[in-house]
């Protein structure tokens, strides 16, 4: 085996994310480092409250937040709220991502369509999301539909913009390869443009998903009987800061997990990438 073969093999293993001992140890180490600072802060606050430096009424100590979480879990409320929120995000994300990908793709491929529609989309993009709420409530009522719509709108724009921008910046040299092989416009889209933008698409979906989690809070603040956003409102109205902080922490965890799932799902599509650093 020559040196270059060895290097290739190593590159291949690195790309496929081998499950070897060093990788697992590295992951644990990364987790420990990432958790160290928040854990230290939480511990400090806990000690401060126990020592009587603060009464912890408005900023509850970690132990009380944990107790609240356990309570919510025991009654089954926590699962119900999480399911409600995740369902809204999933539906809104699905609609927004599909629409953003299709319209962004067509806009990128057809200059005519872009000139026709892009100014309108860019205009709507600068409208604050909350501004849609009254209209959506009039159109779709006060239950699930307006919430899902609002999330879909939030997800749509980053995905649309990401796909459009990525298609416009596809390397001319690769497009010429398609021309030499006489691809039609549809084939060009399917065989050159779409694969070329996969990495940017994955990033666009991630930022879309992030916005989805932001917008679900806005949607649930506008009136809901379940969901993590409802826990926030409920905590404010009944003066339960521990419940608010608990809901915020669950949001953070869910967002991070959803993002990690998306990254994991898109990884096999991006194995070909020749990048200086492994994907995040």
């Amino acid at each position, binding site marked *: 085996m020559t040196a270059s073969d060895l290097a290739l093999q190593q590159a291949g293993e690195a790309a496929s994310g081998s499950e070897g001992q060093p990788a697992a140890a590295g992951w644990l180490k990364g987790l420990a480092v990432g958790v160290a600072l928040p854990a230290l802060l939480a511990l400090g606050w806990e000690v401060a409250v126990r020592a009587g430096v603060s009464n912890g009424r408005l900023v509850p100590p970690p132990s009380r937040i944990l107790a609240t979480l356990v309570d919510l879990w025991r009654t089954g409320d926590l699962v119900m709220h999480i399911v409600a929120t995740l369902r809204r995000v999933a539906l809104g994300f699905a609609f927004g991502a599909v629409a953003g990908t299709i319209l962004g793709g067509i806009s990128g491929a057809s200059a005519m369509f872009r000139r026709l529609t892009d100014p309108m989309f860019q205009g709507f993009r600068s409208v604050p999301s909350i501004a849609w709420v009254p209209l959506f409530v009039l159109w779709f009522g006060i239950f699930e539909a307006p919430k899902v719509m609002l999330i879909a709108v939030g997800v749509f724009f980053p995905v649309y913009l990401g796909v459009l921008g990525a298609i416009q910046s596809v390397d001319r040299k690769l497009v*010429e390869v398609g021309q030499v092989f006489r691809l039609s416009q549809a084939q060009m889209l399917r065989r050159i443009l779409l694969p070329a933008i996969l990495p940017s698409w994955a990033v666009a979906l991630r930022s879309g998903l992030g916005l989805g989690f932001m917008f679900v809070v806005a949607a649930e603040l506008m009136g809901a009987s379940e969901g993590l956003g409802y826990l926030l409102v409920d905590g404010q109205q009944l003066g339960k800061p521990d419940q608010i902080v608990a809901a915020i922490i669950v949001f953070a965890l869910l967002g991070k997990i959803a993002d990690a799932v998306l990254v994991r799902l898109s990884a096999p599509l991006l194995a070909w990438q020749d990048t200086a650093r492994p994907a995040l």
Partner: protein
Amino acid sequence: MLTIEALTKTYAGGTTALSNVSLSMQAGEIVALVGGSGCGKTTLLRLVAGLDRPSGGSVAVDGNVVTEPNAAVGLIFQEPRLLPWLSVADNIAFGLKHLPRKEQRARVDFALMRVGLAGYNDRWPRQLSGGQAQRVAISRALAPEPKVLLLDEPFSALDAFTRASLHDHLLALWAAQRPTMLMVTHDVEEAVTLADRVVVMQPRPGRIFAQIAIDFPRPRDPLSDAFIAAKRRILEALDGSLSESRPKPKPDESPAAAWW
């Protein structure tokens, strides 16, 4: 076979990249285009490939006028331009999608064996060296069996050893399929090694300055007298093409230019 008639290309800015170029090639002939920079070699190739439209004149393959990319004409670029998201095998099969899967696979395996990369089917392009990638690119262009193969300085980015081995690969592939090959090169030795005829072009505007036939048999020993003589003739022609077109200073330009 390949007929180029009075081909002219003027770009939007007003630069005439090619002026009245006529060239005719026989089936299976290898012609090398050499010339100083800006003499329209690449423009000529892009016109023959149908990637650009001529301002005047025409290109025809077997009597069919080329106006757009054409199944009979394959093109190899200066860089490999492999599609990074396709495996080596899928890259080679890129122009074979109209064939049944089995036939595609057979052609890919055969092509890889031909260029000494048997078993590389499932590699990603990023895992190839520059020479290997260019060999895959050559296989991709030849897999649909074009009648005309155009090469735009295909080996200019490679080191001398890799280049020499790729010359051998290319000649072996040519011997098997006998496409008509028109290649642009900066390298006079490369032209003498490969071509039946060397066309020396002249810049501003791009046109043909001289044609030199190279009629001794391949493989050609770069130290043989015939090789050195052919090289000398091409270098002399290149010299002539450049000195004749060297711009003479215009009298009205100098004072203003000095002021600026």
